[in-house]
């Protein structure tokens, strides 16, 4: 702390402090004259008593001088200020206020965010800064002013008006924004961080600050709060077809130290279901609801639990795009290929399945990535591997039938496997199909069945478990590729020939892409009787359904705080599109031109809920924003553990603000002057006890 004088121009007044001394020394009162017989005795007495009076005189002089000096100091307006108050130049403070979803938690009557804003308002009102600004920590950090300014009243008003957002906080971005603003100014620079310091968000966030910026961390919220949240909600498959069994998966999390019990409600397709669930402390629970959608299109569903102290994460939304059909693209083999009939087989197959649509492509032509659910390559020669992988990554399941001359290396590369030794051309085995020797009427060929490694419990063979449909690979096969019997882990063997040669292998593409099936069972009638078998159709259908890409409808989900966007397509007029929120309230939008076409953006960032892009009364597209899961864990961390800056109590911060402004001391000096004068009166009343002169 420092002692400053706000009015040093009056410093010369302190010279008047010598007045009591001068009065004491020179001033003589003018008492009445009295002629007396002898003053010699009086002088003698005065000398004797002076030894007793002098200390009293000194004390009186001291008290009077102190009283005068105290009064003089009042004119000098003394101030008690903080240590750095003497720093000249402007004082700039940026308040970094956490506006993320966890700040909506309430420790008492008000939310943490309200408390943070109140404290920031108090600090602004304390007048410790010449210029200030507020930077919000949310999904898209922004500041109230483009640079710190002197309009502190506006900042205070904005702090009162602003509400918390159900968004996660981009702490680093907000810090960077604040620092960049502070680096533009001179003088004393201060950064005050007001946050609950949620452990999940701040744990790995060190404060890398340039020198010259003082950082103070003010923790908002004292205790960890218990919370139960709907953590995840999705449908699998993410794009079921009409009538397909779809599983709604809902995961709950208990962010408390005690086991919790709650009821989960699932709403979808006009219906509502509920189920009780118990969760251990700091545990998780998963609930699955099975359903079938009766019509195609985007279907919204939601899961919710009973409202608790932190209701923002008690509901979650999901969107599922129900497909009318799945698209199968069949790339024809060369005309002279023995597998040429394969395209017809698939076409007939698709005709038999309502939900399957088949498109034939000429040989070597591939569909656009993401335009098909399945791509069947009859007689694949091992080319266009990169293109095929790209297509697979977009969620298309590849079914590849190696052609004559196709190399094992190509297959391994396509499947993302390590190319082993002897990865040359895959030999082709062929049989005549006529019986021999002892069984002249038994057609010669290979038979295949469910691979032992797959087992009958594999989901794709669930339909065949009862035996009703027989062997899914029933039939005689006259040609096959002699694939190696050994395959690395991760490759699933579905069908094997009776001699162990793999008939069908599959591998799931990483990053939620489609599966890759190595098809070694010819479907052409000239090469096998399989397609004529009864189990062929159900097996093929099951195969397709169980090998769709495990993708989620993420393109329709945005993070709270981000902008909702939709590219409607050329046939739709953007002006006719209206964005409405879950309550049906229209939202403002902006129309932008992009290289991909006209894009409509929401003017405001999205908050949690379901949004619909409507054209007239019809819903053209839906999007949703869910509560950021990271904000559900309301455990806080001690800001001391965050490297950088100083942890300050809010009251201490206010005190420093006052010190920065300077605490006026004049009332204290006036009180001191009164005390000195009172003491002076008491001392002057005190009469020293005269000493008794001993008799001679």
């Amino acid at each position, binding site marked *: 702390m420092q002692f400053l004088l706000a009015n040093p121009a009056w410093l010369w007044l302190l010279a008047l402090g010598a007045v009591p001394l001068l009065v004491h020394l020179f001033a*003589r*009162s*003018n*008492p*009445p*004259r*009295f*002629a*007396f*017989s*002898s*003053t*010699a*005795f*009086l*002088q*003698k*007495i*005065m000398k*004797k*008593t002076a030894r007793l*009076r002098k200390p009293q005189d000194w004390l009186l002089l001291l008290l009077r001088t102190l009283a005068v000096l105290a009064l003089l100091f009042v004119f000098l307006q003394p101030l008690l200020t903080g240590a750095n108050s003497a720093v000249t130049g402007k004082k700039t403070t940026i308040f970094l206020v956490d506006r993320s979803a966890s700040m909506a938690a309430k420790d008492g009557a008000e939310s943490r965010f309200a408390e943070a804003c109140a404290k920031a308002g108090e600090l602004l009102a304390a007048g410790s800064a010449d210029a200030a600004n507020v930077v919000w920590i949310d999904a898209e950090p922004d500041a109230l002013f483009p640079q710190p300014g002197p309009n502190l009243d506006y900042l205070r008003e904005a702090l009162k008006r602003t509400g918390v957002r159900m968004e996660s906080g981009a702490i680093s971005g907000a810090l960077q924004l604040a620092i960049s603003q502070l680096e533009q100014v001179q003088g004393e620079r201060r950064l005050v961080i007001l946050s609950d310091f949620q452990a999940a968000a701040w744990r790995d966030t060190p404060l890398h600050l340039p020198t010259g910026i003082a950082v103070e961390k003010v923790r908002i919220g004292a205790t960890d709060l218990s919370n139960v949240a709907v953590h995840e909600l999705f449908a699998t498959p993410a794009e079921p077809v009409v009538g397909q069994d779809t599983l709604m998966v809902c995961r709950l999390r208990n962010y408390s130290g005690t086991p919790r019990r709650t009821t989960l409600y699932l709403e979808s397709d006009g219906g509502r279901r509920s189920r009780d669930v118990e969760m251990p402390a700091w545990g998780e629970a998963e609930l699955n609801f099975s359903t079938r959608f009766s019509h195609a299109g985007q279907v919204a569903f939601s899961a919710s639990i009973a409202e608790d102290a932190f209701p923002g994460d008690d509901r979650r939304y999901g969107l599922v795009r129900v497909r009318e059909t799945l698209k199968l693209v069949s790339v024809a083999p060369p005309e002279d290929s023995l597998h040429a009939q394969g395209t017809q087989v698939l076409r007939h197959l698709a005709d038999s399945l309502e939900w399957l649509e088949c498109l034939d492509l000429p040989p070597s032509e591939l569909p656009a990535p993401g335009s098909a659910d399945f791509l069947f390559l009859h007689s694949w020669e091992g080319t266009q591997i990169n293109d095929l992988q790209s297509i697979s990554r977009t969620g298309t399941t590849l079914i590849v039938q190696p052609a004559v001359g196709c190399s094992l290396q190509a297959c391994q590369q396509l499947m993302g496997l390590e190319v082993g030794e002897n990865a040359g051309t895959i030999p082709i085995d062929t049989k005549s199909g006529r019986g021999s020797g002892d069984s002249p009427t038994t057609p010669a060929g290979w038979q295949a069945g469910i691979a032992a490694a797959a087992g009958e419990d594999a989901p794709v063979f669930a339909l065949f478990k009862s035996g009703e449909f027989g062997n899914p690979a029933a039939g005689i096969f006259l040609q096959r590729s002699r694939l190696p019997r050994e395959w690395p882990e991760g490759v699933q063997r579905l069908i094997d020939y009776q001699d162990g040669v793999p008939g069908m292998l599959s591998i799931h593409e990483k990053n939620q892409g489609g599966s890759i099936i190595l098809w070694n069972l010819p479907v052409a009638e000239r090469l096998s009787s399989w397609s004529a078998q009864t189990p062929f159709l159900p097996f093929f259908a099951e195969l397709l359904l169980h090998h769709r890409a495990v993708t989620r409808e993420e393109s329709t989900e945005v993070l709270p705080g981000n902008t909702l966007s939709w590219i409607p397509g050329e046939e739709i007029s953007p002006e006719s599109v209206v964005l409405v929120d879950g309550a049906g309230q229209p939202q403002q939008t902006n129309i932008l031109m992009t290289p991909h076409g006209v894009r409509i953006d929401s003017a405001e960032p999205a908050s949690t809920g379901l949004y619909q892009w409507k054209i007239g009364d019809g819903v053209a597209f839906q999007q949703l924003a869910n509560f950021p899961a990271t904000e559900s864990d309301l455990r806080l961390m001690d800001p001391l553990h965050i490297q950088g800056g100083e942890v300050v109590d809010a009251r201490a911060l206010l005190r420093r603000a006052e010190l920065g402004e300077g605490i006026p001391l004049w009332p204290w000096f006036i009180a001191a002057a009164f005390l000195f004068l009172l003491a002076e009166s008491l001392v002057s009343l005190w*009469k020293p006890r*005269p000493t*008794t*002169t001993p*008799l*001679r």
Partner: protein
Amino acid sequence: MPEIKYKFIRPEDIRRLSRYEFGVKALVEGYLSGRHRSRERGASIEFKEFRQYAPGDDLALVDWRVFARTDRHYLKTFEQETNMECHLFVDCSASMGFQEEGPINKLEYASFFAACLAWLVTSKNDRVSLQLFDDKIRQFFEPGSTRRHLHQILTALEQQKAGNPTSLAEALKRAHPLIKRKGTLVVLSDFFDEPEAIFKALNPYLHRGFRVHLLHILDPSELSFPERGLSRFVDMETNHRLVVHTQTIREAWQQEMRRHTQTLRRLAAGRQVDYALTTTTESWFKLFDRFA
């Protein structure tokens, strides 16, 4: 005796003094010898005056030459040199002019007493001298016992005004060679002087056999030091000024005065000097009573 009109001796005082005929026995040495005139002639006898013959007087004392001239019998009286002389020292310094609570100032009080004593002594045909002093001897009247001498003394007392600083010791020292015969020494003063110096000055008198009486005269306020707040005290002798708050030193003053008087008393007792303290509110006749 013809009618007396003096300031410091009134008819009532004379009447009262007549009762002190015996009272001054201790005061005036050789009273009895004063009553009884010495018949011895000699160089030591001094003609005093003619007195008409009264039956019973010694015929040897009749002056026949006067009878021859006047045909009346007159006695010739002579002053007899005895050991009976009363020497009065009256302090006329400025401090003796102080008066506050008393009806008269200290000089007047001393003058009253000195006048009465002088009358008493001379009425008994004893001799009395008078010294008026302050820091020096103002006036000195040699010992005498005539009425004319008394008149001079009384007149001188009336004419005195207090003034100048005190120096009793100096006055005693200077007066010593002037007093040829031992007798009684009566000092009337307020004794605002160093006791040791006073008694040092008295030593020659004591060595010569004088009987010394010190009459300490003070105004009552000089003993009590009444409350008068903050005052500027001006010394009547030196004009020295001192601002004093009486409340703060009153007790000390009283104590100092007690100490001073006790010192005088002690020193007096050690030298067989008579010491008496009186104030101007008390009757000076009390002093005569003291020695009754």
